[in-house]
C-alpha cells in the first residue's frame, strides 16, 4: 500500500513537476529570444547602419549638399566624419542628440559651437579606450576640408562633474562615452571624457575643469 501510494504520488508529482519544468523552459527561452534578440538587434543596428550612413555621406559629397537621410524613414543624417588615423578608425557622426540616433552612430551636440560627440562605449565609441594623449583626430563636414584636432586631456568623471573651460579661440572637440568600458551595467554614473583642441588656431588654453 505504502508502495502504491508512493507510486501514485510520484506519478502525480512527476506530472506536476514536468509541467513546471516545461513552463520554466518556455519562460527562460522566451527571455532568451527577447533579450538575445534585443542584443543582436542593438549590435546589428550599430554595425549595419554605418554602411547606409556611409553611402548617404558619399552621395552628399558627390552632390555637394547636406547628406540625405541614410534610409528613407530615418530622422537623422550624418553631419561629421570623425577619424583617427593612428587607429584607422572612421565614424560618421549623426545629427540629433537622442537615443534613437545614438543606436545608429555617435551623435553630435553643439550648443554654442562647442562640438560634443556622444557615443556608446560598447559599440561605436569602444575605440576611445585605445586613444592616447596627443593622438590626432580628423573632423570633416560634408563639404569642408578635414580639420585636425589633438587629444589634450583624457579623464574619468562623474556624470555631474564634467565641465570644460576654454579661453576663447576655436571651440574644442569633446568625446564622451560611458565608463568603465567593459562594465556589464549600462547605467553607471561615470563618463570617459576626451578633450581635443584644434591643432591650428585652437584656444591658448582649454581644459577640463578640475
Amino acid at each position, binding site marked *: 500500500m505504502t508502495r502504491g501510494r508512493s507510486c501514485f504520488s510520484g506519478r502525480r508529482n512527476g506530472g506536476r513537476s514536468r509541467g513546471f519544468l516545461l513552463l520554466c523552459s518556455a519562460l527562460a527561452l522566451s527571455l532568451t529570444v527577447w533579450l538575445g534578440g534585443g542584443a543582436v538587434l*542593438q549590435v546589428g543596428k550599430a554595425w549595419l547602419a554605418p554602411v547606409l550612413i556611409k553611402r548617404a555621406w558619399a552621395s552628399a559629397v558627390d552632390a555637394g549638399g547636406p547628406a540625405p537621410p541614410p534610409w528613407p524613414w530615418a530622422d537623422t543624417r550624418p553631419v561629421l566624419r570623425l577619424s583617427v588615423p593612428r587607429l584607422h578608425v572612421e565614424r560618421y557622426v549623426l545629427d540629433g*542628440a537622442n537615443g534613437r540616433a545614438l543606436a545608429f552612430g555617435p551623435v553630435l551636440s553643439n550648443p554654442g559651437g562647442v562640438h560634443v560627440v556622444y557615443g556608446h562605449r560598447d559599440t561605436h565609441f569602444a575605440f576611445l579606450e585605445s586613444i592616447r594623449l596627443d593622438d590626432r583626430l580628423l573632423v570633416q563636414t560634408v563639404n569642408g576640408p578635414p580639420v585636425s584636432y589633438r587629444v589634450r586631456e583624457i579623464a574619468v568623471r562623474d556624470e*555631474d562633474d564634467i565641465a570644460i573651460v576654454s*579661453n576663447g579661440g576655436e571651440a574644442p572637440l569633446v568625446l564622451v562615452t560611458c565608463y568603465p568600458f567593459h562594465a556589464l551595467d549600462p547605467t*553607471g554614473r561615470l563618463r570617459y571624457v576626451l578633450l581635443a583642441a584644434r591643432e591650428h588656431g585652437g584656444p591658448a588654453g582649454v581644459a577640463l575643469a578640475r
Partner: protein
Amino acid sequence: MSIAIFSISGAIRRCMARPGNGAAWQQHTPIGLALCGILSVVGLFDVDAALAQGRGQDRSPGDMELQEETGFGLMLMDQSEAAQAWQARLLASYAAVEVSGAVARARIRQVFVNEAPAEVDARYLFPLPDDAAVDKLNIRFGDRWIEGLLKEKAEARQTFERARAAGKRAGLVESLRPNIFSTDLANIAGGELVSVDLEYQMTVKPKDGVFELRLPQVITPRFMPQQHMVSADIKDWDTLMAELADNGAVLETNNPNAPHGFPAAFVVRLKAGGDIATIESPSHDLTVRRHDEDAADIALRDRYVPADKDFVLRWRLRETAEPAAMLFHEEKSGEHYYMAVLAPPKAATTKAPARDVRFIVDTSGSMHGAALDQAKAALASALDGLRLEDRFEIIQFNSDMHSLFGEAVPVSDNTLRLARGYVANLVSDGGTNMALALRAALPGPGVHDSETLRQVVFLTDGAVSNETALFGMTAANIGDARLFTIGLGPAPNSWFMRKAAEAGRGVFLNIDRVEEAGEKIDALYRKLQSVQLTDLDVGVRTASLSGGPKAEIYPRNLPDLYAGEPLYFVLRSDVEAQELTLGGMLNGQAWTTSIDADGAREAPGLARLWAREKLEDLDDLRRMGADADRIRAQSIEIALAHGIAGRYTSFVAVEKEVPREPAERIGDGQGNGTGADKKEQLRKASAKSALQTLASVQLSGPATAAGWLRDLLVAIAAGLAGAFCLWAALRRQGTPA
C-alpha cells in the same frame, strides 16, 4: 566667437540615474561682449586713473599679443546688437595676500569698465585656489558700494534676475566648481566703473618642508619655466607698501615698465611662523624684503607682469629637531576652532620596522597597453626596493584573482626572481573583480600585528563602478594595514583612488608616463620607509570638569605622518581647549604629545576653513551615496552659518534704488572732454584690443552605453536554463512512473 556657460541638456538621459541635474546650468545663451577688466586688489585702487590711461592711449600691437596670452577674461551678455562691436579688455591685475603660518587671507579686487555706450550685462569666470573659502563680496558701481549677501544658490540667482529685470545694478558671484567662480553683473551703465571685491581664506600646507602659495590666474595648467630670479631687495618697496598700507595703492599706470593692457601685480606679506630658510618662485621674478627671521614682504620684481600664468610662491623653514607644531585658533559663536599643522622631524634615527608588502595589480582588460606597461615598470622598481627583512606577495586580479605565493614570503633571491618573472608575464584581459584581491591583501577587521608594518600597494586604473562598496570593504578590513593606490593609464579614476587611499590611511599617487614609474615608486618607497607617526588620534583637554568636549575633526581619518608630510587638521570644539593632545605610534613606539592651546595664534577666518573642510566631507558623503537632499540641507546650513560661497550658496549684491542717471558716466569727475568724445575714444581703444573669453561648458549628456552585452549574457544564461528545463522535462516524460 564667445561662448557662455551653457549646458548640453540631457535630451536623452536614459542611463542617468538622477535626471535634472544639469538644470542649474541651463541659463545664459546670448552673449554679446565687450568690456574690460582690471583685476586689482588692496585698498582703494585708483581706477579712474587706470581708466584714463587705458582709454587715452592707442594700443600697440604688442599689447594684443600679451592679451592673447591671458586666461582671465570677461564676457558681456548684452541685449543689444551694438554691443557686439565692443571688445573685452583687461587693464590690470593686482592681488594681495597675508600669510600667517599656514593660513592665508587673500583680497582681490576686479575692476571693470563698461566701454560700450549703452547699459550692458556682463559675465566672467575666474579661478581661485582649490580650497578657497570665499566669504566676502562688495561691488562698487560708479561711486556707490553694494554689499554682497550670501544666499542659497537658487534664491541668489532669483534675486539677481529680479534686480536685472527691474533695471537695478546687481552682481552675483557663484561657485561653478570648487576652484572656478563666475561673476554676473547686471545693468552696468555706459562708461561706468565696476569694482568687484572678493576676500577668501585658504590654507598653505607644507609638503616636504616647502610651503607653497598658488594664486591661479589661468584655469588651464601651463608650462612653467625653470627657477626664476629672486633679487635681493626691492628698489621702491617702501612706496609700494605704503600704498598698500594707506589704501592709496595707486597703480602706476604711467610706469614705463608696466606692460600696457593688463598688468598684474602680486604682493604677499609673509609671517611664516618659523625661521625662513628660503623664498622663491618658480613662476615669477621676485623682490623680497626680509623684516625678520620669520617675516618678509614679497612683490614682483617688475611689479607688473601679464596675468598669463599662476603666481606661485614657495618658502622653506629652517628644520628643527623636534616636530614643530603650529596651532591656530578662532572663537566664533561660542564655538572654538583650531587648526594644527604638525611637521615631523627629518629622517628618523631609528630604523623603520620590517614590512609586509602586498602588491595588488589590476590585469583586467581596461589595463591593456600603456597602463599595464606602467604597472610592470612600477612593480619592477618596487621589487628592487624591498629589503631583506621584508616580506612580500603579488596578487593580480581581473575577472578572477591569482596570488603568486599564496601568502607573504620573505625577500630572497629566489622569491625575487620568481616575482620578476611573474610580473614580466602579466597579461591583461577580462573583468575587474577588485573586491576579491583587496580582501585577500587586507588583514581583516581588528587584526593587529605590532611586529611588521602591513602595506598594500594597489596598482590600477580604477575602472570600477561599485566604488562605494569598495570603500566600505577597505575601511572595514584595513586593520592596521595601510593602502597605497597607484593610478595608471591615461585617465585613471582618480577620485576613486584618492578616496580608497584615504579609507586605507595611505596615499594616492599617479603615474602618467611609463618613464616616470621608477622615480615615482622610489618617492613612494621613501615615504613607506620613513613612516613615522601612525594611528594618530587627537584629543581635546579642557579646564571644565563636567563631561568631555564635543569635537569634530577633519579630515575624518587622520592619515599617517611620513617624513616630509605635515599632519594637518581642523577641529571644532564646543568648549575652549587647554591643550590638544596627540597620540599615536612613533616608529612603532607609543607616542604622545600635547600642544598648548594658550600658545595658539589667533587666526580670524579659521572657522570658515573648518566649514570648507566640512562641506568637502559632506560632498564626499554625497558621492558615496548618502541621501542627496539631506546632504544639501546640511551643506546649506553650514555654508550660511559660516558665510561662504560654494556648491549650494552664492553671493548676490543688489542696489537699493534704480539710479537716476544710468548712463553717461564716462570720465566721471575728470571733467575733460565731452561724453561723446570719450565714447569715441573708448571705441577706438577697445576695437584694437583682443577679446578675452573664458568659457565653461558643463556637460550632462545622454546614456552612452548600449548595454547589449549584459542583455546578451542574460539571454545566454536564460537559454541555458531553458534548455536544461526542457531536457529535464523530456527526460522525466521518457521515464515510466
